[in-house]
């Protein structure tokens, strides 16, 4: 089953790169990645849909949550 996490991040490509590189290294298979600038607050929304592979979804959430410049993570 695919699951999607949604992170609020600094609007910098490096943050997205770090998040995706980490998930790749942990063996996740990413089905969809969407980063959208949030015009109002100078941040960005990053949605990533993961296939049911690799470690658990919770580990993915924790991994992403620990990245500097990732402010919040939730499942949607």
């Amino acid at each position, binding site marked *: 089953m695919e699951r999607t996490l949604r992170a609020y991040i600094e609007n910098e490509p490096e943050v997205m790169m770090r998040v995706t590189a*980490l998930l790749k290294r942990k063996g996740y298979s990413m089905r969809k990645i969407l980063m959208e600038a949030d015009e109002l607050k100078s941040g960005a929304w990053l949605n990533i849909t993961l296939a049911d592979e690799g470690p658990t979804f919770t580990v993915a959430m*924790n991994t992403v949550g*620990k990245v500097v410049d990732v402010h919040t993570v939730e499942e949607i």
Partner: protein
Amino acid sequence: MKLSGAQIVIECLNAQKVETIFGFPGGAVIPLYDALYDAKYPMKHYRTCHEQGAVHAADGYARTTGKVGVCIVTSGPGATNTITGIATAYMDSVPLVIITGQVGRPLLGRDSFQEVDITAMTLTITKHCEMVKTASQIESTLMRAFEIARSGRPGPVLIDIPKDIMIQVAEYRGEVMKPNSVHQELDHEAIQIAIDALKNAKNPVILAGGGVGLASASNVLKEFAARSNIPVVNTLMGSGAFPQSHHLSYGLIGMHGSVAANSCLSNSDVILAIGARFSDRVVGASEKFCSGAKIIQVDIDINEVGKNKEIMYPIVGDLGKVLSIFSEKLDGYRWESRSDAGKKCDVDHKAKQMLSAIRQTFGEDAIVVTEVGQHQMWTAQYYGFEKTRKFITSGGLGTMGFGLGAAIGSQIGNPEQTVVHIAGDGSFKMNSNELGTVSKYNIPIKTFVINNNALGMVRQWQRMFCESRFSETDGDDSVDFVKLAEAYGIAGYRVKSQEELEAVLKKIKNNKSPVVVDCIIDHDENVYPIIPPGKGITEMVTAFETLKREVSL
């Protein structure tokens, strides 16, 4: 106060009370070195011979002092030369701030001279990295870099600064940043459940990892172990987390752990792991690792708990705080002493005797820095570490060439202490250029090359797992280490026997100058015990046998 970007960098380092900087200049950091020219005591810059050496030096400085190590290098090749050092620090959770120069902003993205995208390259080996975009951001970015490097689980942070920004003038605010102590709420319920599990244990054991030293939790650990009479084993990085001479210590576990330690661990029904990540070098075959035991894992980093091994009782939080709660709630609980069987190690060989003479000469307070290979494992097995921040080694990445740079940083950070550098001949050749730094600053490191004239560790594997087909692992005696030392103006000795070594040790014991001692040993000496990769910790091999070709090297 209006300052140039470069001056702001120096002011930030001052504000962070940085006294020691390691680095190497170049085009993109000329403005920075120009500002550094005016830096005042106690700030001092040490120029190494190679940027890798600079990062290892900053790393050794950080590991032994507990402060953040700082390193400045230029763009392009200067920056790429830091990569191995950064990855080494990252794998062992060492706090560093690396400042790289970058080409000016108008030149970015044009394959300009000495331009590389260093932040992209170091994304997965830093805790954080970023390029500063304007001079006005330098202050906040750098101050935050230090905070990130040292807070929570420490790690290296890289800040890339384009050259034009270093010349731009901006306001330096000199604001003091509040340490952003991300206060981690402890899950008291989880702790209580774990404590209850421990209460019901028949044969519990404490597994101490590198996190104990990082969290400065070794005193709490000592007290808890002594009160509860629970035996302690340590990982490679946990060497010294608990005094190895203590009767409760069973010593090193893992691939080259002792029989006593590995059997103590596998005969336990509850394992309390403190700041240990259950790496493959500790666990061997994960499914065979202590399959009957309940595991409590305490770590500051939520991503560590359960990463390599299914954990029944995960606890995230500061190790010292959690251990204190254990200590308090288990007051009055005392377990029966475990058998001492197997603790007396009857292995004996030349390298072991040499290490023990070195240990006797310099004592338990010396800082011991190693390279990577058999000599590293022998040091971990036999040296006997009593305190944290004394055994400095590249455990996670296993970087040959780490030792000399790290010894330089350790000595500079601890001028009153003896720094012993235990090297292998192969590793020493990788960064022996740093003898130039040792000589230039007269850094009194005592280097002992445990010289088997071989890439011994790999050779041992070829002997055990490849029917002694020694492919490219035999040495060729191509370097005379005594003459090499002398070329740098450093005293060099060669010793072939224990007596010769002891005579040299007597001579150099109180020397305040560097020395290189080439200690000749046999190339067929192996590290035992060994748990072949992919095997369980009960399948330990204690003497030479040719084993089936390994697929999972």
